[in-house]
C-alpha cells in the first residue's frame, strides 16, 4: 500500500523542470538529471520531495527526492560541498539557524510536514535528534549533559525518573560502564570517542525517532570509530539513522542504503551492497573507485 502510494508520488514527477542555467560552474552533471535507483522504501519514516536549498543566491541542493525507511541506516556519501550535510540539516530544520538559508520542497516525518507552521520546530528536533561532526558536550557534568534534553522537554518528573533516563541512555550509547562512577565529572573531560558517545546518549535521552549523524567519526581515531560504528548497528533496532560520512568503508560497514550526492544533486541511491559493488551511474562509480573526490 505504502509502496504504491510512494510509487505514485514518483510517477507524478518530474516537477517543474529545473532552471536551464546551472549556477554551479563547471558542472559535469547534465542538467535535469534524474536520480538513479529506487528512492522509495516500503516503510518510510521520513520522505522528502523536491527539496532545494538556497544559501543567499547560491544553490545548496536541488530537487532532492529521498525516502528514509524505519529502522534503517541510510548513508550519504559524496565529495565535499556536494550538499549531503545540507540535506541532513533540512531533516530537523537546523538550517533555520542559518539566516541566509532558504529551504523549499516537502519533508514529511511520519506523514507530517515538518514545515507545517502548526508543528513546533522544537518538537521536531526532539523527534529528529542530531549528532555533530565534532563532539560537542556541554561544559556540564556527564549527568547534566544527558539530562539536558529530558529536562527542557519535561520528560522526567523528579530525580528518580531522570536518573533512570540518564542510565538507560548511557547504556544504549555503550558508555554506562565507563562513566557510572563519575557522572558528576565534566563531560568535556572524557576522551574524544567517549565524548561522541556522550553526545549520542544525549540525543537518545529525548527518545527521538530519527538520529542524524553528520560525520560523527571524522574527529575520532580508528578504535573509537569502530566503537561508534558498532553502536550505530545496535541503535538501528530502535531508531532510524541517517549518517553523512566521507569514509566509504564506513558507509559500507554500517548502512543498509546509500545515497550518493554530487554538486547539490542526489545522483544515485540504492542498497549499499549494490552501490558499492555495482554502481549504475558513472559519477557514483568514479567516486567509489576513487577516480575523483
Amino acid at each position, binding site marked *: 500500500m505504502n509502496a504504491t502510494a510512494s510509487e505514485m508520488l514518483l510517477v507524478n514527477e518530474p516537477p517543474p523542470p529545473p532552471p536551464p542555467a546551472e549556477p554551479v560552474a563547471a558542472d559535469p552533471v547534465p542538467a535535469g538529471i534524474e536520480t538513479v535507483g529506487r528512492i522509495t522504501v516500503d516503510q518510510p519514516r521520513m520522505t522528502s520531495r523536491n527539496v532545494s536549498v538556497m544559501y543567499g543566491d547560491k544553490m545548496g541542493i536541488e530537487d532532492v527526492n529521498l525516502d528514509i525507511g524505519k529502522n534503517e541506516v541510510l548513508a550519504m556519501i559524496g565529495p565535499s560541498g556536494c550538499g549531503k550535510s545540507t540535506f541532513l540539516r533540512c531533516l530537523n530544520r537546523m538550517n533555520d539557524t542559518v539566516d541566509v538559508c532558504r529551504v523549499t520542497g516537502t519533508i514529511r516525518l511520519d506523514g507530517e510536514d515538518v514545515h507545517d507552521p502548526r508543528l513546533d520546530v522544537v*518538537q521536531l*528536533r*526532539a523527534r529528529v535528534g542530531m549528532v555533530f561532526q565534532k563532539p*560537542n*558536550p556541554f561544559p556540564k557534568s556527564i549527568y547534566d549533559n544527558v539530562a539536558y534534553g529530558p529536562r*527542557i522537554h519535561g520528560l522526567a518528573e523528579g530525580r528518580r525518573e531522570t536518573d533512570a533516563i540518564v542510565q538507560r541512555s548511557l547504556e544504549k550509547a555503550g558508555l554506562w560502564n565507563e562513566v557510572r562512577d563519575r557522572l558528576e565529572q565534566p563531560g568535556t573531560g572524557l576522551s574524544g570517542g567517549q565524548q561522541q558517545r556522550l553526545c549520542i546518549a544525549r540525543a537518545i535521552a529525548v527518545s527521538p525517532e530519527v538520529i542524524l549523524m553528520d560525520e560523527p567519526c571524522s574527529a575520532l581515531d580508528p578504535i573509537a570509530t569502530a566503537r561508534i560504528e558498532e553502536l550505530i548497528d545496535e541503535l538501528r533496532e530502535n531508531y532510524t539513522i541517517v549518517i553523512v560520512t566521507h569514509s566509504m568503508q564506513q558507509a559500507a560497514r554500517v548502512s543498509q542504503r546509500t545515497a550518493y550526492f554530487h554538486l547539490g544533486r542526489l545522483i544515485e541511491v540504492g542498497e549499499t551492497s549494490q552501490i558499492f559493488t555495482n554502481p549504475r551511474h558513472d559519477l557514483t562509480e568514479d567516486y567509489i573507485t576513487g577516480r575523483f573526490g
Partner: protein
Amino acid sequence: MTGAALVLVLLALAAVAFHLGRKRAFAVSAPLGGAKHLHSLPGYYGSLAALWCAVPAVIVLVLWLSLESRIVENLVVSGLPEEVRALPPERLDLVVNDIRNLVEGNIVSGEVDPEMRAAAGRYRELQRTSAAASAVVVLIVAVAGLGVAWRRVAPALRARNQVERIVRFFLIACSTVAIFTTIGIVLSVLFEAIRFFGHVPLTDFLLGLDWSPQMAIREDQIGSSGAFGAVPLFAGTLLISFIAMTVAAPVGLFAAVYLAEYATPAFRSVAKPALEILAGVPTVVYGFFAALVVAPLIRDTGTVLGLDVASESALAAGLVMGVMIIPFVSSLSDDVINAVPQSLRDGSYGLGATRSETIRRVVLPAALPGIVGGLLLAISRAIGETMIVVMAAGLAANLTANPLQAVTTVTVQIVTLLVGDQEFDSPKTLAAFALGLVLFTITLCLNVAALHVVRKYREQYE
C-alpha cells in the same frame, strides 16, 4: 650647542653612518662577487653602523645631562666663601636656589650681594663650558662608534643578528617601563603611608568609625578632632560601588545577551559602537550630569514621596557610575558570549531547545567565568572612580547604608586631602597616601582575580 641641536646633529650622523655602513658592505663584498656573498643584507650593515654611532652617544648625553647640574652646583658651592659653606644644609640649599634664580633671571629673595653675583656668574660660566664640552664629547663618541662599525663591516659579520639583538633590548626596555612605573608608584605611596602609620596606628585607621581629618594647627582650635577611622570611607565606597553594580551588571549583561544572540547584524553594528560611546564620555561630564540632573531629580522625587533625601546622595552617584560602567560589562560579556563555540549552540538546538533555553542553560554557564571576570574588572573600575563621586556623592563621612544619604568615598577624600596648599608632614596629608595604598591593594587584588578567572576560561576552548 643646545641639546636639541645636538640631537639633530646626532640623527644626521646616524643617517650618514647608515649610508656609509651600507656602502662599505657593498665595497667589501665586491671582490667576492656581489652583495649576495654577505652574511646579511647590506641594509643591516647600515643599520648596525647607525646604531653603533647613535646609541653610545645618546647614552653619554643622557648621563651627562643627568649629572651636569649636580656637578656644576658642587663646583659653585666649593667656590663660595667659607662662612656660607658652613651653613646647615637647608640654608645652603636656599643659597643655591638663590644663585640658580639669579642665573635664570627670576626674582630673588632678599638682597643680592656681590658674592652671590660672582657665584651666579661662575655658575653661568660652568654651564656654558659644560654644554660645549658635552657637545664635543658626544660627537667624538658618535664618530668613534661610526669608525668602529665601519672597520668591523666584513662579509662574515652577522649584522642582521646583531641588529635584531639590539632591537630586542630596546623592546625589553619599553615593556619594562610600565612595570617600573608601577613599582615606583607603589614604593612612593608605601613610604608615605608608613610615615602616616607612625602618627596614626594601623588599627585605628582600618577599624575606626570616625573620619574627621582636620588637624588642630593651634592648641586652642575648635572642631578639629583629627580622627582617622577610615571605615566610613570604605563603607561609602562599597555602597556606591554596590549601587553602580546593581545598575551595570544586569543592564550590561542583558545588553550583551541581546547583542550577541538576538540582534540582527545591522542593529548590532549600530548598537555596539553606540554603547561603547558611553565609555568615551569623560567622567567629569558624568560627574556634573550626576550632580546637576540626577541628584536634584532624586531629591525632588524623594520630596514628593515624603522621603528625606540629601541633595548629594549615594544613589545619584551610584546610578550615574553604573551607567558609566555598563559598556565595560556589556563589551566584555559580549566578547565571552561570542567566544562560546557555535557547536555548543547547535548541540542544544539539535536537542530541541529554544533559543532562550540555549542561552540560559548552555551559553551563559559556558561564558560565566568570563562574565565574572568582566564584572570584577568593572567593580575595580567603580571603586577607583573619582570624578563622579567628587561631584555627586558629597564630603560628609556618614557611616550609613541608606542610599539617600550623602556618603563619601576613599577617592573623594584623597582628592580633598591633597587639593590646595598642604604641609607634607601632617597626618592629614599623609592619610591620603594610606588611603591610596588601601585602594591600590583592593583594585590590584580584584584585577588579579579577574585576570585569573578570564585566563582559566580561555584555556577551556583553545
